[in-house]
């Protein structure tokens, strides 16, 4: 169990990580989700012991390890770049952490072959890292991290430098590898989709702060504030000013029945909804209509991203099918009220969307 107690780090007066408390359970998968420069890597370096926290303590199984050097911590790390010893064969690369630990020869050989088998590297054992594809190089780096049997395995955007196909392939394998290892995995990513695929727990980061930490589906469905919702939506969540008055909630020019928001006090709110909940037709009788202007479309093949302007707000909708539309034309979009989140004046979640509560 890894515990961070009020851990913060500032460098030269600039705060990299605001005081953060997290508890990562033994054998859990933990995703750090946030945009570039949100502090994912800084937080990982603190967990690893590569950097010392300015304040706070780090406990490992109840023991204070705050000042302990990274070498003495039983940590393994995989980076965005493919880091292997360039002059050594794949076999020797995987064996290197065990050799440093001074393990007996037959044990090293057994473990190297086991790990290589798990990562499909057996046919490449005699090759040099540079003679491998990017995906295989990263597998080799993963093998190097896993073979030690470290209690904490940190993966810092390990798939970011891989092309789409290889990324998919490794993404599916990482949960399997994780289960076999029994270690605490910490996985940093900028992609919400990756967090959802990996499951486990997710901590969302924004400007050096952990905005929310909990089981991944919960964080996704019930973000505690608008920032978390932005971070955990791709494309980011759309927002529109809202006002609740009695039994009605007005969103821009449209109004809907308060329904699940009936208990909220009257006043101004911020309504948020995800791109995939916007549609170009009235799919449900309860859906409300917004008059927008089309800014542009991106066609992925089976889906279309529709960028629209609604007054001063810029929204993105993800709709099924290919839609050939002309930029600049007026466009009506529909939204099912069950998919609307309400945030209060300080952007804290006031009420989750009805669909999210039901799930």
């Amino acid at each position: 169990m890894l515990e961070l107690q009020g851990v913060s780090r500032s460098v030269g007066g600039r705060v990299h990580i605001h005081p953060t408390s997290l508890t990562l359970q033994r054998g859990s998968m933990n995703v750090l989700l946030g945009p570039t420069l949100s502090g994912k890597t800084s937080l990982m370096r603190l967990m690893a012991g590569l950097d010392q926290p300015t304040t706070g303590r780090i406990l490992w199984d109840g023991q204070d390890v705050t000042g302990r050097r990274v070498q003495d911590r039983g940590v393994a790390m995989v980076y965005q770049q493919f880091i292997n010893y360039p002059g050594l064969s794949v076999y020797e690369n995987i064996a290197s952490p065990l050799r440093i630990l001074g393990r007996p020869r037959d044990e090293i050989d057994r473990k190297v072959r086991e790990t290589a088998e798990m990562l499909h590297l057996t046919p490449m054992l005699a090759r040099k890292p540079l003679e491998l594809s990017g995906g295989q190089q990263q597998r080799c780096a993963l093998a190097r991290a896993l073979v030690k049997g470290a209690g904490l395995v940190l993966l810092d955007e390990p798939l970011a430098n891989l092309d789409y196909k290889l990324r998919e392939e490794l993404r599916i394998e990482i949960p399997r590898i994780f289960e076999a290892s029994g270690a605490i995995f910490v996985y940093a990513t900028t992609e919400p989709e990756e967090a959802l695929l990996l499951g486990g727990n997710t901590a969302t980061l924004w400007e050096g702060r952990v905005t929310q930490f909990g089981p991944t589906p919960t964080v996704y469905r019930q973000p505690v504030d608008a920032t978390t919702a932005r971070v955990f939506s791709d494309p980011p969540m759309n927002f529109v000013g809202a006002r609740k008055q009695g039994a009605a909630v007005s969103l821009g020019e449209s109004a809907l029945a308060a329904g699940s928001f009936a208990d909220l006090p009257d006043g101004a709110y911020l309504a948020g909804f995800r791109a995939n909940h916007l549609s170009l037709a009235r799919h449900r009788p309860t859906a409300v209509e917004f008059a927008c202007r089309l800014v542009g479309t991106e066609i992925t093949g089976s889906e279309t991203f529709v960028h629209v302007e609604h007054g001063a707000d810029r929204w993105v909708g993800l709709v099924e099918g290919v839609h050939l539309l002309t930029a600049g034309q007026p466009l009506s979009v529909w939204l099912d009220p069950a998919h609307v989140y309400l945030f209060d004046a300080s952007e804290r979640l006031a009420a989750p969307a009805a669909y999210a509560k039901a799930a």
Partner: protein
Amino acid sequence: MEKTQNNRAWLLVLPVLVVVAFSAVIPLMTVVNYSVNDTFGNNAFFWAGLEWFDEMVHSRRLHEALGRQALFSAIILAIEVPLGIFVALNMPKKGFWSSLVLVLMALPLLIPFNVVGTIWQIFGRTDIGLLGHTLKALGLDYNYTNDPLDAWITVIVMDVWHWTSLVALLCYAGLQSIPQAYYQAARIDQASRWAVFRHIELPKMKGVLLIAVLLRFMDSFMIYTEPFVVTGGGPGNSTTFLSIDLVKMAVGQFDLGPAAAFSIMYFLVILLVSWVFYTVMTNIDRSQSDIPEAM
């Protein structure tokens, strides 16, 4: 698909051909011409065939100069390459000091060769030179003008002073290109300083090291100006390297035929040794055993 022939393309290549012809091919051919002819001036040439080559191949004077030259280059490489790597490893990686050190390191490279020679010629003199006088005052019997060993030491130290910077700067560039993540990964692995050098820094520096070794070999093998200014090839013939000997032969004795043959052989030796260095260093990786001992 059929390619269209366009002979005007030759016209575009022509300037390069002309420049290369006048700067390299024609001078080289002139040397070849001298090497197979005998001449007494007035542009009168008499066919001599391979006579000069034969004479040079069996010349004791050339053998001795070649031996001195090989020894000199070997010593230079043995000192400058490890020293350059060592200096590069210890140079500050960033900030003010890194800029300052870079400028200081580049200084010796900016000094004209004969100025370097003059500096050391004066520096080493026992009557007015700082180095020579100090050594003498310390009771050491140092005099590069009449002791061959002292002359060698002076020439070698001078070359190390002049050129180690080049190796260090090249290695420094190689080291700077290694991402920080490598060092972090090594720290997490508990790798020793030696393992970091052997398995990360050295392999990553291989490319620039190859260039450094080739440049230092070629330059030291062709060295002329600095020892000529300092020792003039002496005392006796003890620091007469190939270039110095060649100039003596061609300009001093005006033996144009033998000097031309000498030049061609000299060029071929440099080409051959450079090729050997290149081949060996690019293949070093492949011949390494696949499973070395514990790191």
